[in-house]
């Protein structure tokens, strides 16, 4: 195993992208993700890659669209307000079935909001963000190591399924430093016979396109795309279970909220409370199966979020409301404390797991 180095989450994303073979980065400055761009600005020119500060997030995502059309691994990164601007491009990427990696280091909203960490773009990410029927693969790292690993995974999945992968991180994950091992396994990009790299006068012309004026055809594209999404759901759903074997109370949390919750769970276990956690690593596809299976022994779910409660809807859907689910949350850039989570666990326990 390689020596571990201390890196900021944002830097780990950038370095992992380079390791994954990404040589094209386009972005526009916004806190708290600027280190990704800064890292790329330093490295790309030295390895023959492209770093370009675009005139806007809209331009950046369309430059991504261009490189993706040509079949190369490509990425952009931003934070919440910038991702809204990229929404148009995300929809077009989906409509043209192009692989790309988009990083959202979330901050509090809505509007210009603040610059402190948040998870309030969960709906935007898991429901698409732009117009039309589509999904992105949404990956939620909870450590700097995962920032790196899921970046590589994001490129691979994007290529495999011809769709956009989004890293949904937050300001804490972006700004914190942790040891990270960068001996990452990388699957090389597959052949992309559909890419627009010039016909070389040896084949029919390729067209990258999302326009389809015949409704019957457009419908078929949508149905076919959702067949692909089904495979993603079957094969690529990821999650971590923590102390779930005998859990009667189950925390649902991702990213920084999961880190905070782990402290609370450890303390609650010392108090003899049977509590565990299911931490979704893919937010789309959402890990429905482990949540449903856990209803066999879990009497109460607690969704811990840095939002007004977004993932809680998926928890309720996944558990088919077989047990109640309550919300422990902070918003606007605030982070729930372990004590706040612990209190909720104790309360759930006093109720005999029944709220």
């Amino acid at each position: 195993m390689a020596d571990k180095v201390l890196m900021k989450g944002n830097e780990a994303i950038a370095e992992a992208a380079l390791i994954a073979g990404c040589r094209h980065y386009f972005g526009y400055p916004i806190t708290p993700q600027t280190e990704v761009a800064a890292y790329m600005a330093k490295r790309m020119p030295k390895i023959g890659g492209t770093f370009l500060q675009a005139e806007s997030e809209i331009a950046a995502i369309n430059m991504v669209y261009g490189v993706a059309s040509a079949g190369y691994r490509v990425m952009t990164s931003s934070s919440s307000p910038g991702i809204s601007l990229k929404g148009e491009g995300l929809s077009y990427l989906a409509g043209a079935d192009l692989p790309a990696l988009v990083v959202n280091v979330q901050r509090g909203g809505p509007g210009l909001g603040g610059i402190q960490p948040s998870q309030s773009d969960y709906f935007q990410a898991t429901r698409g963000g732009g117009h039309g029927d589509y999904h992105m693969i949404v990956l939620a790292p909870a450590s700097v190591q995962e920032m790196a690993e899921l970046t590589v995974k994001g490129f691979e999945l994007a290529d495999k399924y011809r769709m956009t992968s989004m890293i949904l991180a937050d300001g804490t994950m972006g700004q914190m430093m942790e040891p990270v091992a960068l001996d990452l396994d990388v699957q090389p990009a597959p052949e992309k016979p559909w890419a627009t790299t010039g016909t070389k006068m040896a084949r029919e012309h390729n067209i990258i396109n999302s326009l389809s004026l015949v409704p019957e055809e457009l419908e078929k594209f949508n149905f076919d795309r959702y067949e692909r999404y089904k495979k993603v759901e079957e094969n690529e759903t990821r999650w971590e279970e923590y102390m779930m074997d005998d859990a009667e109370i189950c925390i649902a949390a991702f990213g920084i909220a999961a880190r905070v919750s782990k402290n609370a769970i450890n303390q609650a276990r010392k108090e003899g409370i049977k509590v565990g956690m299911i931490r979704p690593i893919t937010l789309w596809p959402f890990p429905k199966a482990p949540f449903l299976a856990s209803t066999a022994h879990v009497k109460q779910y607690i969704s811990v979020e840095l939002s007004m409660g977004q993932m809680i809807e998926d928890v309720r859907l996944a558990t088919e409301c077989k047990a109640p689910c309550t919300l422990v949350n902070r918003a606007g850039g605030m982070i729930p404390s372990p004590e706040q989570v612990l209190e909720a666990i104790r309360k759930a326990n006093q109720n005999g797991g029944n709220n």
Partner: protein
Amino acid sequence: MTRQYLFSGFGGQGILFAGKFLAYKGLTEEKQVSWLPSYGPEMRGGTASCSVIVSDEAVGSPIVSNPDVLVAMNLPSLDRYESSVVPGGTIFMDSTLIERQVKRDDVDVVAIPATALASENGFPTLANMILIGAILEKFGENGAEGVEKALGKVISAKHADMLEVNKKAMQLGAGFVK
């Protein structure tokens, strides 16, 4: 064992640097570590803080809200965080810039006129490392090999001449605890 540090002071006092040093030291000693800075406009001239956790186990939340060790480099930092220190914890403070005493009696206090010492010794920007030296001495970690390695990590090759000065600052702080 887990030790949670909270560093706080003015932007420019080397708060993030001091935290980074301890994180690197932990890393070279194969501990689990995390380093989380405050970020944004407040860092520019305002208050800077950072959470550092060094542990034998996986680090849960990287946010330190109840530090075992508070390093307060100015008065607003002590005012803000004094009450958050765990009972039995330690407060290291720069008594050049903090004229009042710590009010609590259930914590250990190490007060060093770090800013004055740093100026007197010709390295006015290294009050932070004087305090670091005191921390290491206090916890019996000054001889650890991690110190040398970690210094090598946080001080870039370009500024290698700063290595010795940093060590000197740390020795000064250590001497204050002995």
